[in-house]
């Protein structure tokens, strides 16, 4: 091994060995930085970061990948969800009406791998595209207009968008929503919730910073100490 693995380096394009010069450093965050991806290849991780950041770009608040969404999707694909938990996969498979829902013969992890591969075939260099061009590609994909062979591009888009949104706003225990990026953005205080004396105080902003399921006192400078919960 020539150098320790770094997810951050992968996402920043620092480990990219393709001929293209370094991508602009927009995908800096990787919470599990020293661990190899559980599911994604490095190429897939870079493409996914570019895709997620088109959906939730950086502004005053972090982008999707800056909030750990690539880590989130990687873990989801490697876990029960990616492997078809809660999905009836008995054939035969037929194309249905939209009202009949998902009918592809692919597990979510297969859809992710297949979709990224076909995206690269359809639009090579996707991860390094200029923003405007990439926006156009994603728009076409979302409308089912991107040619991805027999894979409907909107089905792949729907899956990636669903997971990106989930990763940005789910509890940080799943690898996304790093430092409560999503929760801070909207003002959601998290998993601890006793509002009996507050709910009818109208138009008063709730003062507490977010706390997740695994929140540790002192884990973040401005956060209050988590109350000790007594068993009922």
């Amino acid at each position, binding site marked *: 091994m020539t150098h320790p693995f770094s997810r951050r380096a992968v996402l920043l394009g620092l480990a990219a060995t393709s001929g293209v010069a370094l991508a602009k450093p927009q995908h800096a965050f990787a919470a599990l930085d020293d661990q190899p991806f559980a599911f994604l290849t490095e190429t897939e991780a870079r493409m996914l970061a570019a895709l997620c950041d*088109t*959906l*939730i*770009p950086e*502004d005053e*608040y972090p982008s999707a990948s800056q909030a750990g969404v690539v880590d989130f999707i990687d873990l989801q694909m490697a876990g029960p*969800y990616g492997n078809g*938990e*809660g*999905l*009836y996969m*008995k054939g*035969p498979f*037929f194309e*249905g*009406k*939209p*009202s*009949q*829902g998902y*009918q592809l013969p692919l597990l979510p992890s297969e859809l992710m791998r297949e979709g990224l591969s076909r995206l690269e075939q359809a639009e090579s260099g996707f991860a390094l595209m200029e923003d405007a061009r990439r*926006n156009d590609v*994603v728009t076409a994909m*979302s409308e089912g207009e991107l040619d991805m062979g027999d894979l409907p591009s909107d089905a792949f888009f729907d899956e990636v*968008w669903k997971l990106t*949104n*989930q990763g940005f*706003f*789910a*509890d940080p*225990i*799943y690898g996304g929503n790093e430092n409560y990026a*999503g*929760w801070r*953005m*909207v*003002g*959601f*205080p*998290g*998993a*601890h*919730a*006793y*509002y*009996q004396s*507050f*709910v*009818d105080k*109208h*138009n*008063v*902003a*709730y003062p507490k910073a977010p*706390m*997740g*399921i695994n929140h540790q006192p002192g884990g973040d400078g401005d956060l209050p100490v988590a109350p000790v*919960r007594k*068993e*009922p």
Partner: protein
Amino acid sequence: MADKTLPKTDVVIIGGGWTGLTTAYELAHEGRKCVILERGDHRHDATSFGAPEEHDELKYGLRYTHMMNVRENTLTFRNSRGDRALPMRRLGSFLPGEGLGGAGIHWNGQLWRPLPSDLEMRSHYDNRYGSDFIPDDLSVQDWGVTYDELEPHLDFFERICGAAGTAGNLDGEQREGGNIFEGPRSNEYPNPAMKQPVSSTLFGRAAQEMDLHPFPFPSANVTKAYENPYGAQLHPCTYCGFCERFGCGYFAKADPIICVYDRIKEHENFEIRFKSTVLRVEKSEDGKTATGVTYVDADGREIFQPADIVCMNAYALWNVHLMLVSGLGTPYDPETRTGTVGRNYSYQTISAVDAFLEKDIVTNPFMGAGALGMVVDDYNGDNFDHSDLGFVGGGYIACKQYHGRPISYQPVPDGTPSWGAEWKRAVRENYLHHADFVIHGSSMSTPENFLDLDPTWTDQHGRPLLRMTFNFPENDRKMAKYVTERAVEIAENMDHVTSVSATNLAAEGEDYSVVPYQTTHNVGGAVIGTDPSTSVVNRYGQMWDHHNVFVFGACLFPQNLGYNPTGPLMGLAYWTLEHLKNDYLENPRPLMDA
């Protein structure tokens, strides 16, 4: 042939949710040995639903960890007979439960009574508007049981739940602040109504100004420390915002585990077996009675459990499925419009209105509860004059504050792109400044909406999947359009509103879809009535064709009313149990002549 036959029990009960546990409670206290077969696992509010772990939107709200897992067993769906039905491969539109407490642990706790006219729907409309008023393509019918007959049972279930609300009709006297359209109550709600956040307060004020009649949601989210008639202790709601799709670790949302199971689990006549999936109800040689049920136990063995009485207490859809795979009753045939099992399946007609608010109005949507909000019932049932409207039925309009869980609660004004920079900005600008309305409408039954068995797909036991054929009837599309327009008027009349948008899932041209969540209110398919050619059970919930089989739950509804089903179906359950206990047990026989 079963691997093993067990000793006979007095009563075998299929399913351990609200109706199954209540059936066991009531019959065990009558001295009958009751065995519940529950396909899922044991779980308990104290050990399974505690915060903060329970407050996990992804795991419970979006990966459906408390619900039925459709990996091995689902249904197939099509909009009409001309389509090929395909498996519902993921949960979406509705979320049946699995495990102790069934769907009763992840409900919102919206606890309604039917209107008196809902229960006599065909005769009511015939009397008020003439016998050709109900459109020909609807198979609407009377329930065969009246509000006055159900009232004591509706009242008792409200006390089981420690329901919170404001009475609008106490013994015939109308009361301001409650639902003046409701049928007469024999008692006040056992607990005072919930506190109201700013969103629903603004809604209530606007509705009042329009001479409508707003009142707080009738709620099984309890507002005070409370002991129910079975001795269960309930605690006040914390407004935590993790209600629907979640269990309540605070013991504040009435559910079948704390309200019933804990009070019967140690009784000598009570037994429950988990991981026990009933494959079929077995019939006697002459077919007139059931002899018991065959089920698969946790070790995969097929067990025959003989019983004197079989109670079907599974979720509405699975009761119908079990009848079809067991050959109970006569399956409905939409060609000839004969047969009854699977007939009159209906659903709920849902639309939504979003009112966006000025920035100094801070709603704190995460301070929510499953039955938090204000409601107007002026456009529900036949509470308004239908003469010139061209449809029957209606719905309630509620400004609700269930939750602010940030993956699912992302209100943005019309015209916002669905992703990207503008979307991101709109999500954060509106999250704390939005009032959320639901229009919860009735669903009329038709000869073309029905349940039968699928010819292609099977479950893990080799049984054909249930097949659902459903689309919104024209009647309900007209109703939803009308009531949604009324909701928009209220939103536009609210103070501090900057824009209003509406989403009608039953709009003209929109097919019913199993993808977006609407409501877990699948009803009908084994309906109650007084005529064996149009009902599966008689007015006591007893099967016409097999007198020792009693059927519970929303599968009994001949069409769906504009309310959430738990109150009405539990009223029916106690009504059936009254007649079982006081009449049938001593003298088993058909309780009505066919």
